[in-house]
Structures are given as C-alpha cells and as structure tokens.
C-alpha cells in the first residue's frame, strides 16, 4: 500500500542543513500494524508528516496505493488527507467549542458529506469507540481517554486506508492507554492499516512490526517473526 524510496527531508536551521530523513526506503502492506520508534530527532515525526500528506519530501518517491503523492499540489494533498488518512495526535486536538459528535463530523464536512449522512456516520463511529452515550458532550466534560476515543472516531470518519497515530497514549495513564491500544488492535483486525509513532517500547510491543529510526535512517525493521531485516 505504501512504497517509499530514497526519501529525504532536509531543513535549513540557521546556516546548517539538518537531514531529518537521510534516504529512507520501505514498504508497508495493506492491513499491517507498524510502530515507528526512535529517539526524538531521529526523523520518525518527519516520516509521519510526509506519510500523512502534511509535508513534502525534499527528495525521493512516495507512492500510496500506486498514486504518486509527491506530485500532488496543495489541494490534492488536502483531499488526500481528507479521504485516505486518519490522524490521531498525542494531545487529541479536539475543538473545544464543538460537541463530540460535531468533532467527529468535521472531516466529513471537508469531504462534502451531506449533513444528515454525516450525523448518522459520526454517531456510528462514536458508538464503535464506546462513546455512544456521550455524543453531546464537549471535550472539557470528558476524560483524556474519552477524548482520545473521540479523536479516533474522528480519524475514522471518512473511512481512511491508513491510520497515523503520533504518541497516541502519551497523554494518558497506563490503564486508559491500554484501552486505546486495544481499540487500535481491534480496528487493525478489521483490516485498517495502522502506523503508530512512539518512543514507548511497551506501546511498540503491541504492534506486529517495529521500525527503528536513528539520525534519519532506518536502523532496524522487525517484522515480528523474529527476523530483523
């Protein structure tokens, strides 16, 4: 599903060039669950931003289901994010003045879904993450775990092919963190491709495949069958 080849991302910091990604090639298949691990500054966030269509690589190729994402213009990238990608963030990123239902509706509004249909779908998504009874609540009236579930429901709103989670349990206690990971697992079991960026090895242990980054390069790729390539 995802093929990247020779991916580079270079930033200019003052007079220095920083190579956040120094030539990364990998493929991720449909339905995989992958953890991307590495210390901060290793390039894992840069990779995630490029995979999610929030950023463009400096060099290299990125194919998503055969489409060359690198050739997309701004508007193409916006639709790509809208239809193909679901984002889950460490800090949930819910809009505080909207209810849970309205937050889940947001991506569908940008995708042009009818008001009636998007309410129905948002309600179904909230049901799926176990918040069917809290649709009218605002983020401030919910616990962290509940907020992250709303965020997950939102990421699923447009039935994306790929779910990108950036430290999804970073702001949660162990118990709720585990619940959220369970939810990810069950979504993955339904066929959703899952990529979790984390530096928490316990979180990484929950996925079948683990890719480790250091200094903008892949240093290990553990497919979970014990054979690191």
């Amino acid at each position, binding site marked *: 599903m995802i093929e990247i080849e020779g991916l580079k991302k270079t930033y200019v910091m003052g007079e220095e060039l920083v190579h956040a990604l120094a030539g990364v090639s990998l493929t991720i298949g449909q339905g995989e669950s992958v953890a991307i691990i590495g210390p901060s500054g290793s390039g894992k966030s840069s990779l995630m931003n490029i995979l999610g269509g929030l950023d463009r690589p400096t060099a290299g190729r990125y194919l998503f289901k055969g489409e060359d994402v690198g050739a997309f213009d701004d508007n193409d990238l916006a639709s790509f994010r*809208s239809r193909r990608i679901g984002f889950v963030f460490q800090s949930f990123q819910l809009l505080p*003045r909207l209810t849970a239902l309205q937050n889940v509706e947001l991506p569908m509004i940008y995708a042009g879904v009818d008001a009636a249909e998007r309410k129905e779908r948002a309600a179904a998504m909230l049901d799926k993450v176990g918040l069917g009874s809290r649709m009218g609540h605002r983020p401030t009236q919910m616990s962290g775990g509940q907020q992250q579930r709303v965020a997950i429901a939102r990421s699923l709103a447009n039935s994306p092919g790929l779910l990108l989670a950036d430290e999804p349990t970073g702001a949660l206690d162990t118990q709720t963190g585990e619940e959220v990971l369970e939810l990810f697992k069950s979504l993955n079991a339904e066929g959703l491709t899952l990529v979790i960026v984390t530096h928490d090895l316990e979180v990484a242990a929950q996925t079948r495949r683990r890719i480790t980054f250091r200094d903008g390069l892949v240093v290990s790729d553990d497919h979970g069958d014990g054979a690191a390539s």
Partner: protein
Amino acid sequence: MMKPLDLVGFATGAIVAHPMRSALTSLGVVIGVAAVVMMTSIGLGAQQMVTAAIGGLGSNMLIISPGASRGGGGGFVSQGAGSGMSLSDGDAEALKAQIDGAIAVAPTVRGGAQLAAEGANWNTRVEGVTPDYLVARDLTIASGRMFDDREARQGKKVAVIGQTVATELFGEADPVGKRLRVGAVPFEIIGVLASKGQSGFGQDQDDIVLGPLQAVRSRIVGRRVKGDNVQSIYVKAATADDLDRVQEDVSNLMRERHRIRPGADDDFSVQNMASIMEAMSASTKTFTGLLAAVAAVSLLVGGIGIMNIMLVAVTERTREIGLRMAVGARRAWVLYQFALEAVVLSFAGGVIGLLLGIGGAMLMSNLAGWPMAIASWAAPVALGFSMLVGLVFGAYPAWRAAQLDPIEALRRE
C-alpha cells in the same frame, strides 16, 4: 468538496462562541453605519427643507424686483426700498405681450392691513394682484372664484382670502359673499384659496388677502407705491427648460423699456428660482457629503477593530487551523472561513447600525422639527459597505490563517 453553507456554519459558530467579544467587535461598525445613516438623513432633510421653501414660492418662476441686483443668492424677495420704484403696469403688460414662453405675468403690490368682519379682527398681509398671480404662485381656489382681469383693472373691491384669514374671521362659516373691511375700505369676499400650509421659511402661506391690483394699490398700500408702479412682477415660464431663455428675454426687454445703455447697470433685478434652488441644494449636498465623510471615518475605525480581533483570533486558534488542515481543509477554505467570519461580524454590525441610524434620524427630525428623510440608497449602501469593510479588513487575517504550516500549527500550545 465542502459545501459553502457549512462555511457559514463555521463562521457563525465561532462568532456565537464568544458573544461578548463579537458584540464589541461589531460595535465599531454599528457606530460607523449608524453615524453615516444619521448624517446623510440630516443632510437630506435640510435639502428637502430648502427645496420646499423655494418650491413653495412657485415653480419655473422668475421674480422681477426694482433696484439693481445685489448679486449672489441673497435677498431674493427684494423690497426695493430706497432704490426707487422702477417697475410699472406697463412693464408687466409688455412682458405679457412680448415674452415667448411666459404663461403668467403677475405684477403685485403688497401691504399690511387690519381686517374686520362680523365683529372679528385680524391683521394680515394684503396683496394687490392680477388673476395671473394664481398661476405664477401655483395657487388654487378652494371655494368661490378668483376675480377676472376686468375686475382687477377696474379696481373693484373684491377679495380672495386665505384659509387662515377665513378661519380667524368667520370660523367654520363659508366666507364667500360676506363683507370684509380691509383697513377702512369695504371689500366683498368672492373666493377662498386652497390651503398651502407653512412655507419652508416658517411663514403661514394661508394668512393672506388677495385683492385686485388697482384697488389695493390706491386704497390700501397708499403713498408707498406711486402711480402705476408695482413692487414686483412674477413671471412663470411654461417649462423648466424655458426658464433660462425667458430670463434672458425678460432682462433684454426690461433694459429696452427702461432705456438702459449697454454697459450700464440694470435698475431692476431678475431672480431665477430654479438657479437659487440649485445653488442652495448644491451647498446642502456639499454639507451632507462632508458629514457623511466624517461619519465614514468611524466606519473605517470599526473595520480596523475587526481586523485587530481577527488577527487575535487567528493567533488564538492556530491549533484549530492546523487541525482543520490535517483533517482535509484546503488553504482556500480556511481563508474563506475567516474572511466570512469577519464579513458576518461586520454585516451584523451594519444591520444593527442601520436600524439605530434610522431610529436616531427619526429622533433628530422630531426634536429639530425637520422633515424625516432617509435616502433610498441608505439601506443597500450601509449594508453593502459594512460587508465590504468586513471583507477588506478580514482579508489579511484570513490570509495569515491560510498561510499557516499545519505541522507548526498543530505543535503550537
């Protein structure tokens, strides 16, 4: 593709989320629009008053007075005091006979007199006129009749009275056929004028007695007007287009009759009501424009207030903008959302300002006793301008929002 209606939902949602802030932001535009509406309506009221004042004298009319013109627009009802009595019946007859396009030529003399009838007394203006006077001054008879040319020439002692005089002397009774003493001279009332109400200058136009020129000149006005002299001659042109030409013909004929050498000053003056009206409405228009311009400055200040708050909002909502982009908002949609928010704020201010402005104008016209005048263009212009202000001053903050980098924006605390 997102639907435009949802953008409106986003914009109004953000506005409603901060009611106090939104109200204060709009207040600048409210005040600006209310000020513009009020100022233009005051100016327009003044203009209507001037038009009514001059139009009340009679339309398409020239007034010929004795004595040299004093220039400018001042003193258009010259009494000719001290400048000799240079106008005569003969002038009026010549004008009537020779000026093409003059549909009425009305020589007049005027004086004041004590009236007495059926035991009641009243003091009023008495004018000696010819039947043409009604045409020239746009007057009509309500009951009875006007005296004819023959009666005017013969100096028959008949009178046509205004409504005020009729009411003061006879109450509800019909005055036609009754006797009326003007000073010491007995007259018979043969007609009552239709009411014209107050003139724009505040004078009661119904407080008047019209008598035949000859009779009033010799019996009422007395020594102040000698022989066949008159105090003014009203000339009415058939159409407004004719007025300038008629004025020129009148001047030429009068100079000829008064044997004024080329280059010498006229011994009479001709006032053109239309040009006086033009000059006065031009000056009130300038005045109105000035007031509106001052008021427009406050609208500008209101716009700057909107820009200020929108810039704050963009900074405050940086993470929201990042998130919107992450879940599929195009840059253009973020731009539209924030621009629309500014336009809605400003437009709402415009609507409230318009209502307040109309209310304020009503109050002012009540207090000042001016005619109430809201320009027909006030509503569309006020609303259009308030939208424009929102668009102009919302554009930059909205552009800033759309230029944000979603990765940076999401990271912002």
